[in-house]
């Protein structure tokens, strides 16, 4: 049995994050594909630190962090050079740089489903324990556990996102459905039938090239791709039933369709949703930014609600995605890089920025009821809701994820084969599709 970063996450909070998959989208990325940004370049004698990310949006919190750092540490000025790559390319580059012992940046973002594979063997990252331990009590530790191995914390999280249901209130009103009356998935299906009967819209869309419909749905029921021991559970009963449920939404209840373009990060999908194609959408909290960037026409029409429940006392959300930021062992200034990263991610100011700049729910719970977090911002305006109160209410209903080195394999299977074969092509039953995928992941594990 191999090492894995198995994390029996104490079901503390949700995982937020960045979407994860092997490249077809699914990050909260926005903006330009390729960009280099230098932050704090005016400081004299500043030490240069490089930062790689696959998500341009993430740079947003480093801007104020560099300013704070340079103000507080006049004799240890820094200049942060941030480079944005497509996720596949960034992972490849980073992996090879770490392997060859040169060319790695000082600081890097690693998406959660790939993090496990980066921790195989001897992790090529600096342990962040000396920075994390002093503030551990204030943090949602489950988020830190995702990016740890053998009691060492290597990655710092961006958020504690939760999967939620986004409702287009205009369509729901037209269909005559009160969104607050939807409590269970059965209610949801009934509401969906009303929507398809009374409007031109579908109730929802289902991803077939990315996992953000399937994964939240199974995680909500405390299932996962792997169990706490790192064993493959991809083909367990809950997962099979859930996949069948997704299929039924499309073919039996006829209230859903496959997402145009394949997933919820495609231009075709944005166009479709913006034109009122579907009445609701299951995505993690970090998807809010996508609405603001790509679906202008929906401003003021969208409502954020917890997910419908599977059972009376079931969870109403599931933690999804995530990105851990690491300091690589190739940095020439390990202390500086670590202390700076802690400034960005482990301080109250940094965590407030995570919400105000990026719309992420910060992993430091001590800032949740702070004044700054309660202040109105573009997210509150677009969704006109007390989003944060809802998040706080949900926070003990979130199951953790079990991340292993094979998580990226499992993700890959889901995105390329399972969803396509079981839902889009219907060439396999959900049972067959998941069993095939599970076998494939297992066969990749046995040889090591």
């Amino acid at each position, binding site marked *: 049995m191999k090492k894995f970063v198995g994390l029996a996450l104490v079901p503390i909070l949700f995982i937020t994050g960045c979407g994860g998959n092997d490249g077809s*989208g699914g*990050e909260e990325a926005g*903006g*330009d594909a390729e*960009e280099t940004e230098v932050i704090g370049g005016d400081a004299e004698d500043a030490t240069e630190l490089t930062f790689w990310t696959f998500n341009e949006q993430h740079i947003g919190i480093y801007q104020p962090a560099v300013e704070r750092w340079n103000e507080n540490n006049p004799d240890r000025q820094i200049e942060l050079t941030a480079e944005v790559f*497509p996720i596949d390319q960034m992972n490849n580059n980073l992996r090879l*740089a770490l392997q060859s012992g040169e*060319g790695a940046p000082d600081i890097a973002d690693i998406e959660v489903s790939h993090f496990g594979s980066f921790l195989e063997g001897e992790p090529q990252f600096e342990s962040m324990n000396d920075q994390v331990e002093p503030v551990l009590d204030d943090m949602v530790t489950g988020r830190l556990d995702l990016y740890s191995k053998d009691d060492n914390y290597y990655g710092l999280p961006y958020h504690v996102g939760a999967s939620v249901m986004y409702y287009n209130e205009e369509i729901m009103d037209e269909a005559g459905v009160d969104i607050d009356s939807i409590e269970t998935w059965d209610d949801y299906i009934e509401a969906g039938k009303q929507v398809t009967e009374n409007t031109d819209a579908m109730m929802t869309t289902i991803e077939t090239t990315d996992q953000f419909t399937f994964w939240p749905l199974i995680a909500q029921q405390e299932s996962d791709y792997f169990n706490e021991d790192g064993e493959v559970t991809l083909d367990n009963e809950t997962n099979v039933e859930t996949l069948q449920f997704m299929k039924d939404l499309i073919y039996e209840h006829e209230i859903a369709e496959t997402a145009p373009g394949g997933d919820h990060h495609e231009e075709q999908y944005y166009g479709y949703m913006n034109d009122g194609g579907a009445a609701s959408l299951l995505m993690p909290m970090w998807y809010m930014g996508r609405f603001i960037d790509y679906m202008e026409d929906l401003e003021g029409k969208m409502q954020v609600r917890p997910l419908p429940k599977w059972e009376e006392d079931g969870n109403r959300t599931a933690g999804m995605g995530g990105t851990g930021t690491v300091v690589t062992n190739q940095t020439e200034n390990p202390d500086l890089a670590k202390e700076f990263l802690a400034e960005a991610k482990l301080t109250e100011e940094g965590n407030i920025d995570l919400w105000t700049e990026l719309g992420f729910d910060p992993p430091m719970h001590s800032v949740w009821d702070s004044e700054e977090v309660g202040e109105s911002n573009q997210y509150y305006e677009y969704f006109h809701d007390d989003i944060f109160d809802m998040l706080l209410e949900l926070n003990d209903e979130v199951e953790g994820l079990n991340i292993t080195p094979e998580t990226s394999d499992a993700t890959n299977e889901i995105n390329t084969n399972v969803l396509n074969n079981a839902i889009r092509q219907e060439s396999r039953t959900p049972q067959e599709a998941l069993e095939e995928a599970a076998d494939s992941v297992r066969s990749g594990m046995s040889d090591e």
Partner: protein
Amino acid sequence: MTTEKKEKWVSILITTIFAIITLIALFPIISLLIASLRPASDLMREGLSLFFNPAELTFSNYLSIFSDNGQQYWRWYINSILISSMLIVLSLFFSSMVGYALAMYNFKGRNVLFVLVLFILMIPFEILMLPLYQLMITLGLIDSYLAVMLPLIVAPIAVFFFRQYCIGLPKELMESARIDGCTEYGIFFKIMAPLMGPSFAAMAILQGLTSWNNFLWPLLVLRSSDMFTLPIGLATLLTPYGNNYELLFSGSVLTIVPIIILFLFFQRFFISGLTVGGVKG
């Protein structure tokens, strides 16, 4: 109907059919030109339609390439031009030497070398790419122009072409040059190389085009966006990462148009360059 009349009709028929085939062949390129004048996100959302509103046509995609957003694109352009032109110079220099020697001299091992050239021609580069990639890492060449060019510098296809070409050159010239006191190198560079003009042109185009459009290898060895070549850069714009589709369409046009213009002027060399292998056929 007389035979002559019949032939005339057949001629018109065939020509019409060819006109249609040609139209189909050129259709993708023509539609790219038109697409580049249409709002980019509409294209991504709706696909390329036969029907479009001419009033919608706009140069805004091209404006974006000249805005801040486009800076990266020009960087890729410069990289592509630099890599291609350096590669042309280096590979023509080395490959012509090798091809010339294989054709003009009788020396021990010549046949073995020629067989090796043919052998390499048969082996897809992709099979060697992982070890080559490791080699580039070991040599510390990752993310450099040199890494992109190295595997193409002594191109077997060019060696082969130069060898075939040189076989047709008069050997008597070498003899008389020797009598005039030229060294062997002098003979090649001063006397023979100038005679190989057309083959240089053809290979310059083949190597230039190969390098300009090269994808998989640069994808492996280039890391920072500042080093990307055009195909790699354009491919990154294909990801659903954001609003860069303006750049994708106008950038694609600017990537192929210069080549097509060059082709119109140097058709002959393009054709002989790209159909190299045919010399033996």
